[in-house]
């Protein structure tokens, strides 16, 4: 098996705060790995290291057999949709076309780029709203547009940063299907707090809290409690299940 991502004794610190301490792990081809762990545990740092946006203090990182910087063009990155200026006047298709920027020298995008962008939108089920302004899309649609943009990069590895953080999943059931369809076609690494996503999409979970630990899926309640050091997350998860008619974990009849 080829390693898609390889961390060897990687350490990183912001100022005096150590975010990652001697971390080693590998991600295999076509694996779907959920990166979980408490806030401030180093999850985002790990994504930035894989993308080559920041450098490790020590250790070695290999992505797609080369340095993160060289691998960048073959990675599809999906940031959180909340960080964008929703008033910015671009259409869904404009945003997806940004995934083809590396092929554009000047002027207009080629017909091929347009075709790939439209195909990417269709793959996340949004072909009908390609001309809609970003401002008029729902949270889930925005996030799917960003996934389509990453798909338009024709990536070998997909990185997603908390893709469900700003979405009401009961409304956006289709979103989970989109995530699942990604898993079937490429290697996926996703940072998430969402236990539903972990159980539906992940092959295994990597808990990051300065150090890393791999967990098999489904996570045991004890593991969840240990990771999030509290029962709040479990209770939240039970409530979500309760609303959708699944009463596992509820103490009523």
């Amino acid at each position: 098996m080829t390693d898609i991502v390889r961390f060897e004794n990687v350490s990183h610190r912001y100022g005096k705060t150590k975010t990652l301490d001697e971390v080693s792990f590998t991600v295999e081809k076509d694996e779907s790995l959920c990166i979980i762990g408490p806030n401030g545990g180093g999850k985002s740092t790990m994504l930035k290291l894989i993308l080559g946006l920041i450098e490790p203090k020590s250790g070695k990182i290999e992505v797609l057999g080369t340095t993160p910087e060289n691998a960048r063009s073959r990675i599809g990155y999906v940031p959180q949709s909340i960080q964008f200026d929703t008033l910015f006047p671009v259409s869904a298709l404009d945003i997806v076309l940004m995934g083809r920027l590396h092929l554009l020298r000047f002027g207009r995008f080629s017909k091929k780029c347009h075709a790939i962008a439209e195909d990417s939108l269709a793959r996340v089920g949004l072909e009908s709203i390609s001309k809609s302004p970003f401002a008029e899309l729902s949270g889930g649609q925005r996030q799917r547009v960003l996934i389509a943009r990453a798909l338009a990069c024709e990536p070998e590895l997909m990185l997603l940063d908390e893709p469900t953080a700003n979405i009401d999943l009961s409304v956006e059931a289709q979103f989970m299907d989109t995530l699942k369809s990604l898993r079937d076609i490429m290697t996926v690494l996703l940072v998430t707090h969402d236990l539903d996503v972990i159980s539906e999409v992940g092959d295994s979970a990597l808990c990051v809290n300065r150090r890393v630990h791999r967990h098999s899926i489904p996570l045991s309640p004890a593991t969840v409690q240990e990771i999030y050091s509290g029962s709040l997350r479990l209770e939240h998860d039970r409530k979500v299940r309760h609303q959708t008619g699944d009463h596992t974990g509820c103490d009523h009849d």
Partner: protein
Amino acid sequence: MIEFFEALQTVPLIRYALIAGIFSSLSFGVMGSFVVTRRIGYIAAAIAHSSLGGIGAAIYFSRKYDLEWLTPMGGALVAALISALIIGMISLRAKEREDTIIGGVWATGMATGLLFMHFAPGRGVNLESYIFGNILLTSQADVIAAAVLSLVVLSVTLLFYHKLVAVCFDEEFSRLRGINSGGYFLLLLVLISISIVLLVGLTGIILAIALIVLPAATASRFNKQLWKIMVSSVVLTLIYTVFGLAFSFVSETPTGPVIVLIAALVYGVSLSRK
């Protein structure tokens, strides 16, 4: 209004002002759309105000060393470009608060200009003309400069439109796609600076920001695509400029304030509509 059209034929200055205004409207509209949607109105304002430093320096050195080629417009252009690069580089690289840099460059440029004007040999400098605009300052050379600079702004925007839009929308993702995000942001600021300098004769450095921002802000209320905002904003700016010049000529009122008030009025009305 007939007097205005008669004057266009007989008075070269009015004709120059109108032609320069029409040419520069093209770049105001396009750059104004970037300024409004990228939310960098304060950077544009700082660049406009700090160009006084270049105006003052140009007047000082041209009088002191008898350099005829050194025009206030030329000085303004250099100062605006320097300010744009300083603000851009510091906001990209250093961990300094952006608004602090903007305020600093804004005031430093103006202070430099005022001192140069104070020490400039010869008769006093008509500061008001540069601050609030004076179309009588428009020369034939300014018309040519406006045409050339507008053409430069438009062509560069057309060539790199998608990259500029991408960098404005998502700087980090553009960088990941191999785009020099910082470079394109600086390019955008440079194009904005050029557009602002074109406004100095028409509205002056203080009112310039209004004509950069208001037409685009009005246009963005009715359009949700950047290129449509640009087209509408160019049309609006053309109307404001031509109508403002005509009205101020007929009513014998200062041109800059008239143009700005028309722009503000239309924007105000647009706010009341969905």
